[in-house]
């Protein structure tokens, strides 16, 4: 193997300059390295002017440097260890790190090399403890971490919702042997059992039987073999099935049973396959016996036997289904290979309290599931393809469930899972690719003072295009593929190349313009009768929402199309009013800047306030498209309050509250919201949730069930989606739901 490779450094060991807190997990064939670093990162800030001359803009936009904490995890073949250590040594500038946490069987073997190269003291951590710590971390912080594997399905990977409470669970770690660990809380776990028949048995026996040395090659052989020529099946003994016991004829009665009697040579492939079945079935059976004994249904599988190998995931899944009759599902983890190093890293970083924060997977910096699989990714077998990366950003805010979710464990934010819907996937990937030119242009235009912006924007284009191509082949790379994940990936890539807010100027201009019409709009609404006003408010809200960027020329359609759906919206709104007294408190997830928020949302909010309903406006913590951010909304609210006594007194009396959502996505995941928001929602006894806009109410949350009344509204600004939902372009979605559908 070529050990003297030249690494593409900036693409693999990123942000090494500020790296500290190293951890390493060296397994039988793969090394996993972890470090913490801080990333200099441009953010767009808005700041209100103290006083405004008539033609001055509403607020000032500035780009500021911010420090972002990021975790880097890199996985590579052991053969590259020395090269990698050299590289790290050369690029590690002023770090005060003295220790590297180490785990895994190979840590011992490479101890001297690491100490010599990096001048860091190797501090060994218990393997199992690291594994569990890492497992808890990914389950808690990465949505869609766990999946079930379905071999012949259109999408082989079915990602699972992260249950709000991740405990208790059973972890079956299949290394050379098998360890079965019951995990009950962050710090309580127990090795309840194990087996000596594991990956080492497959490898060792397989090597003896087939003279094939490498584990991967053995799996390759197995995937081509027929076990029925080697195994004694029920039908070999019975001639058919064993009916009274319900054992089918194809069931293996005795593994390798035919090789004792048949005087013939068996093919390597057949023997490898038989061996794989024997070991997978045995492990599956034990896992089930332990799951039953401890009454656990969440069973995760990991270890090198599983790691990214569809063959073993399939045989284990099959075995679990057989032995539990479907009661227990075999669960696998996207970042299974990183658990040990994540755990070791966390052990070393305990003083930083990493578990106090929420972390988010950075799609721009992470390679995604199966990035190094030669089966799925023949093109990536090039050198850099043997490196797999995971990056996690420390989020500013701690994220929790919206307390108003009816059933947090079954909540799925996304409306369409593109990984299971090939047509939809094709369409959206195409859309995002088509839109890329425009995004690049806008990104460049947002930084007119920076001459290298064009170059950076090209890098962004290249990176995002590459992501889209990867997702075309591996839609499962980052969990379920959704419109939300495509949008978020784009935001991550833009941030990666320091385009924190390409729409900042546009938003500024539109906010400015809309503010000028606010008083006039309020006045004309007040002149209407109550019933007319309700209608106009909804109409305004929806009309405002159409003024999403790029969909400007639609207002005419809005006005003229009789089927637009306003009538229905109005009827629903009346129904809502008829239900009873005004709501105690409404939580409003807002969407776009400009006309939408100022002329659509605010008059509606004003009406709610007048009815005695408190309002909590939730907006994004950081920029995404032209969505209004919390910072911007604060300035806008101040301005509106200055013009409108209703808003002013509401702000003063705390009846109108602004909170940040904790999100920086054009979509909305109600299971990952700012902890402060959750607190406010609870304190105020919120009994109405309003979600506005395509991203938040259609691409996500269309089917979300809440424990209180909810209103989801948007205008479909995409003809394909309109078609999918059985409507026309610019149709209105106005979905009013009460808690219990039956009584509503």
């Amino acid at each position, binding site marked *: 193997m070529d050990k003297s490779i030249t690494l593409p450094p900036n693409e693999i060991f990123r942000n090494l300059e500020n790296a500290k807190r190293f951890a390493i997990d060296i397994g*039988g064939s793969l090394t996993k390295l972890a470090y913490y670093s801080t990333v200099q990162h441009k953010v767009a800030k808005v700041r209100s002017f103290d006083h405004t001359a008539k033609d001055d803009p509403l607020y000032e936009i500035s780009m500021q440097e911010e420090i972002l904490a990021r975790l880097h995890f890199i996985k590579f073949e052991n053969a590259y260890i020395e090269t990698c250590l050299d590289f790290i040594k050369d690029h590690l500038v002023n770090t005060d790190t003295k220790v590297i946490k180490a785990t895994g*069987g190979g840590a011992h073997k490479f101890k001297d090399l690491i100490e010599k190269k990096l001048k860091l003291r190797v501090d060994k951590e*218990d393997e*199992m*403890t690291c594994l569990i710590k890492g497992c808890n971390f990914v389950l808690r912080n990465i949505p869609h971490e766990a999946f079930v594997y379905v071999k012949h399905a259109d999408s082989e990977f079915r990602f699972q919702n992260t249950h709000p409470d991740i405990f208790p669970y059973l972890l079956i770690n299949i*290394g*050379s*042997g098998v*360890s079965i660990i019951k995990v009950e809380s962050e710090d309580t776990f127990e*090795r309840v*059992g194990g*087996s*000596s*028949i*594991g*990956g*080492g*048995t497959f*490898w*060792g*026996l397989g*090597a*003896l*039987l087939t003279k094939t*040395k490498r584990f991967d090659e053995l799996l390759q052989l197995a995937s081509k073999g027929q076990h029925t020529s*080697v*195994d*004694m099946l*029920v039908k*070999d*003994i*019975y*001639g*058919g099935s*064993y009916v*009274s*016991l319900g054992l089918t004829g194809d069931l*293996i*009665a*005795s*593994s*390798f*049973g*035919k*090789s*004792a*009697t048949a005087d013939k040579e*068996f093919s390597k492939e057949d*023997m490898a396959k038989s061996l794989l079945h*024997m070991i997978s*079935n*045995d492990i599956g*059976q*034990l896992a089930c*016996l*332990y799951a*039953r*004994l401890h009454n656990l249904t969440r069973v995760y599988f990991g270890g090198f036997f599983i790691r990214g190998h569809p063959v073993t995931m399939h045989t284990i899944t099959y075995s679990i289904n057989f*032995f539990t009759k479907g009661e227990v599902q075999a669960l696998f983890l996207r970042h299974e290979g990183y658990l040990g190093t994540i755990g070791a890293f966390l052990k070393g970083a305990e003083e930083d309290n990493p578990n106090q924060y929420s972390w988010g997977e950075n799609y721009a910096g992470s390679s995604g599931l199966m990035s190094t699989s030669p089966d799925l990714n023949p093109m990536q077998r090039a050198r850099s393809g043997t490196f797999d990366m995971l990056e996690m950003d420390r989020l500013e805010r701690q994220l929790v469930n919206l307390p108003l979710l009816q059933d947090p464990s079954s909540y799925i934010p996304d409306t369409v899972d593109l990984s299971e819907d090939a047509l939809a996937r094709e369409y959206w990937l195409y859309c995002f690719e088509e839109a890329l030119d425009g995004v690049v242009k806008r990104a460049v235009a947002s930084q007119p003072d920076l001459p290298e912006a064009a170059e950076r924007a090209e890098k962004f284009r290249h990176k995002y295009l590459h992501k889209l191509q990867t997702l075309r082949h591996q839609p499962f790379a980052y969990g379920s593929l959704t419109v939300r994940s495509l949008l978020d990936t784009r935001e991550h890539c833009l941030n990666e190349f320091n385009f924190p807010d390409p729409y900042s100027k546009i938003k500024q201009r539109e906010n400015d313009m809309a503010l000028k019409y606010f008083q006039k709009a309020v006045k004309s609404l007040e002149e209407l009768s109550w019933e007319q006003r309700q209608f106009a408010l909804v109409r305004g809200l929806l009309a405002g929402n159409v003024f999403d960027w790029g969909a400007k020329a639609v207002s005419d359609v809005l006005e003229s199309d009789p089927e637009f759906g306003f009538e229905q919206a109005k009827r629903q709104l009346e129904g809502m009013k008829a239900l009873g007294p005004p709501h105690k408190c409404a939580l409003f997830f807002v969407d776009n800047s400009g006309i939408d928020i100022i002329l659509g949302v605010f008059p509606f909010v004003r009406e709610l306030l007048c009815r005695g309903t408190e309002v909590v406006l939730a907006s994004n913590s950081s920029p995404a498209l032209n969505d209004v951010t919390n910072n911007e909304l604060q300035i806008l609210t101040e301005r509106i309050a200055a013009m409108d006594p209703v808003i002013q007194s509401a702000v003063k009396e705390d009846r109108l509250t602004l909170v940040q959502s904790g999100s920086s996505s054009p979509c909305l995941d109600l299971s990952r919201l700012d902890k402060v928001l959750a607190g406010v929602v609870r304190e105020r006894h919120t009994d109405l949730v309003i979600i506005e806009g395509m991203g938040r109410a259609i691409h996500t949350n269309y089917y979300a069930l809440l424990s209180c009344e909810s209103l989801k509204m948007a205008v479909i600004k995409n003809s394909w989606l309109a078609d999918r939902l059985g409507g026309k372009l610019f149709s209105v979605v106005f979905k009013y739901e009460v808690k219990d559908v039956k009584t509503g």
Partner: protein
Amino acid sequence: LEIRFPWKLELSFPWFGMDIGGTLVKLVYFEPKDITAEEEQEEVENLKSIRRYLTSNTAYGKTGVRDVHLELKNLTMCGRTGNLHFIRFPTQAMHRFIQMGSDKNFSSLHTTLCATGGGAYKFENDFRTMADLELLKLDELDCLIHGLLYVDSVSFNGHPQCYYLENPSDTQNSVKTPCSLADPFPMLLVNIGSGVSILAVYSKDDYKRVTGTSLGGGTFLGLCCLLTGCETFEEALDMASRGDSSNVDKLVKDIYGGDYERFSLQGSAVASSFGHMMSKEKRDSISKEDLARAMLVTITNNIGSIARMCAVNEKIERVVFVGNFLRINTVSTKLLAYAMDFWSKGQLKALFLEHEGYFGAVGALLELLKSSEEP
């Protein structure tokens, strides 16, 4: 004067019970020793010849064997007294056996051939077409339990049928100790043939199959044949008795240098069966005996582990191991006794039976006798 009731028909000889498994056919034959002169005169020639052939030989053809040491003497069955013989031959020889039945004109004897095991189904048609014989097919688990309870009840020529190993934690010095299975229920019955079936037995007719595993005697022999080139179970066991599995298996101490204290795992425990075989150097330095031993230890420990989990899940403390895998296999009996005792901290007890793999065949014979008692 003997009064013969019309509904109790005299059951005609010969009395056989047969269990046709995946690897071995087990045959029990009742040899009446109380034949009157009158009877002897009436006895047809081929019946006589069958009796003579079976009782005067201890080996049949190349592969048939009579386990003389297991013979049950002076047994009274269905009013007749005689000896019960235990014969086995490979299932591969089944067609030759059927052919012999045809040659000896077995069908003219008008006896019912009671058969259990999968082969009763698989070979049913061959019996019919080749030898004009109809099989009475019986469920193998029913036969197993009935046969086991019966054989235990009649004692082994005055000695107990059942035994356990005293001092199981010291496999070098554990002692075979006879015991009684007087109050057998509930018991976990682990039948190790080519594959393994595990039953929870609550009474003679109340039992369930808890689970099974395909890693059984057939796996041990099959893999031994492939790895060492041996051809018989005896050969494989003989090699295993001379081998050292720690050259093949990776032990806890090979990974952790000693005990894995965090989880109180002893250094001598096997961490990965055949784990050393991942390395080419180790593969090149290994003996066939070591491989056979490792195979035996791997299969046995795995069965022990599954049996123990089933016992815990079913809340049964007595685990009875039967099946021909345990024949002349003291390595496995000791390991199983040790595993039950060690992992359960003395809660579970492993029991063994002298007639290991013949209970199904006995159960089949009992069905034959039962059929004569029914009106």
